């Protein structure tokens, strides 16, 4: 039986990075049909059809799927679930919102944040903020899972799958979307950027975060933050890296004024190269840093920005 990958499409826009990474994982399980549901998602369906490893794209173009609310999305997925053994989502906030709902309606467990696939019923996932790695097998007939995108490369372009339109499933949704508060930015996405510069509580204020942003812009990097920086209002919530924020694995991660709590490390310790700038030489972040610089960030960061 084949695999259903639920693409992340919000307001008609494909989140290509996370979907293409989840596709790489899904393809290890069998032939992959991709569900593309949103309002005005024809272009997104075409983009999906052009990814390698896609068998066909099922396109449900309807305003009720615009922001992928869990209730209508789950009803739609349930309508085709009997054709699939595996139902796969990227482990984004949207995917993690829908997948457990689908699993419960199918009376199966959900397998969250899969980082490796050992076989059709055996999966590897992190627990305890990534301080332990669990291998599980499931006896459930259907396997519903979310894929930790940082653990897989993107599927390549060059496919030419067919796009089929799919019938909308009526759903009296009790939840209605009102608005998004999104900060527009020209910077790369946190989860797909090769370089990330993150600031923590040590940065001290929202104004001072401009130092972090200036360094990031010189490096063509995305900007991240610790929970403490977000809680204090220095940075928006979508910059949070960690156990309960975003999971990233860039080529280069620069942690500035971040102590290195377990929950922060959980989100970034698979980065290829880690740099830490901290004035406390005993900060735990130095235990995972390839290059540690004990310095005041207010000296080191501007110096670095100027030298690049």
């Amino acid at each position, binding site marked *: 039986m084949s695999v259903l990958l639920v693409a992340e499409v919000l307001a008609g826009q494909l989140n290509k990075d996370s979907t293409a990474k989840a596709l790489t994982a899904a393809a290890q399980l069998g032939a992959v049909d991709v569900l593309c549901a949103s309002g005005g998602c024809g272009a997104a369906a075409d983009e999906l059809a052009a990814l390698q490893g896609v068998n066909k794209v099922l396109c449900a173009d309807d305003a009720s799927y615009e922001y992928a609310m869990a209730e209508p999305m789950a009803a739609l997925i349930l309508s085709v679930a009997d054709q699939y053994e595996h139902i796969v989502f990227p482990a984004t906030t949207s995917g993690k*919102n829908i997948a457990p709902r689908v699993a419960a309606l199918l009376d199966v467990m959900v397998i969250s944040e899969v980082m490796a696939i050992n076989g059709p019923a055996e999966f590897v996932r992190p627990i305890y903020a990534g301080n*332990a790695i669990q291998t599980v097998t499931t006896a459930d007939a259907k396997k519903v899972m979310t894929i930790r995108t940082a653990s897989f490369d993107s599927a390549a372009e060059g496919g030419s799958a067919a796009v089929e339109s799919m019938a909308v499933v009526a759903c009296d949704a009790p939840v209605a979307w009102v608005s998004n508060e999104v900060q527009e930015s020209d910077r790369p996405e946190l989860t797909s950027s090769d370089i990330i510069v993150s600031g923590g509580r040590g940065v001290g204020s929202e104004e001072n975060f401009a130092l972090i942003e200036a360094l990031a812009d010189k490096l063509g990097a995305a900007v991240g933050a610790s929970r403490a920086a977000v809680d204090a209002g220095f940075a928006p919530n979508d910059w949070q890296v960690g156990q*309960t924020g975003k999971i990233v694995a860039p080529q280069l991660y620069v942690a500035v004024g971040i102590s290195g709590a377990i929950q922060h490390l959980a989100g970034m310790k698979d980065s290829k190269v880690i740099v830490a700038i901290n004035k406390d030489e005993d900060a735990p972040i130095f235990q995972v840093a390839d290059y540690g610089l004990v310095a005041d960030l207010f000296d080191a960061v501007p110096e670095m920005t100027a030298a690049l």
Partner: protein
Amino acid sequence: MKILVPVKRVIDYSVKARVKSDQSGVELNNVKMSINPFDEIAIEEAIRLKEAGTASEVIAVSIGIEKTQETLRTALAMGADRAILINATDSVDVDIEPLAVAKLLAKVTAEEAPGMVILGKQAIDNDMNATGQMLSALLGWSQVTYASKIEVDGDTLNVTREVDDGLQNITAKMPAVVTADLRLNEPRYVKLPNIMKAKKKPLEMKTPEDYGIDVSPRLAVQSVVEPPARAAGIKVESVTELLDKLKTEAEVLS
């Protein structure tokens, strides 16, 4: 309106989990256990709704070993009115899966008829992030995850959610299942007199059989191992040396 708050007993967030040498799991004996941090936030939110006159009673419920009474006492000391413990296992090493927890919670919800269930978004031990979504599906109630702000307005809940690209505002019809994100509120400290008072609050003991729910797991854990360790790094003396190393040694900058 009653509010039901499921709370889980987990390893304290400040403790670094240690994998057992036989690869069967994480060492939980003689380790500091606490209320799951997100559940503390959920309790706090429920109590604030009661203080605001929106809720009439806050019921904390947990599924786990008998010792989980301690966790429920914490919730009671914070201000929950009463508690229910569903004693589902004798072993600290057995983790009841979200699907079974959700099924039990659906039964408790049917009995207690709350207007809202507030859970944590994620248990910091299994990191599943699933129970609230599953409960909402089983009840057919509004699903409201990752809430950073909630406001009850008659039969409607106005919610701000934390999502990958920022914040999302939604409205949800009541009754609703809500999962709490980090910035929903800052939980209060428990005062000593309240700890004493909590000892006298009702704590009902139940079993899964009382609800006719089979809690046997669907997933079988084959092994639990440590993640690969990172090779030790070095300290550099200056920004110049750092940039030089990043270019010539690590080759991540050009």
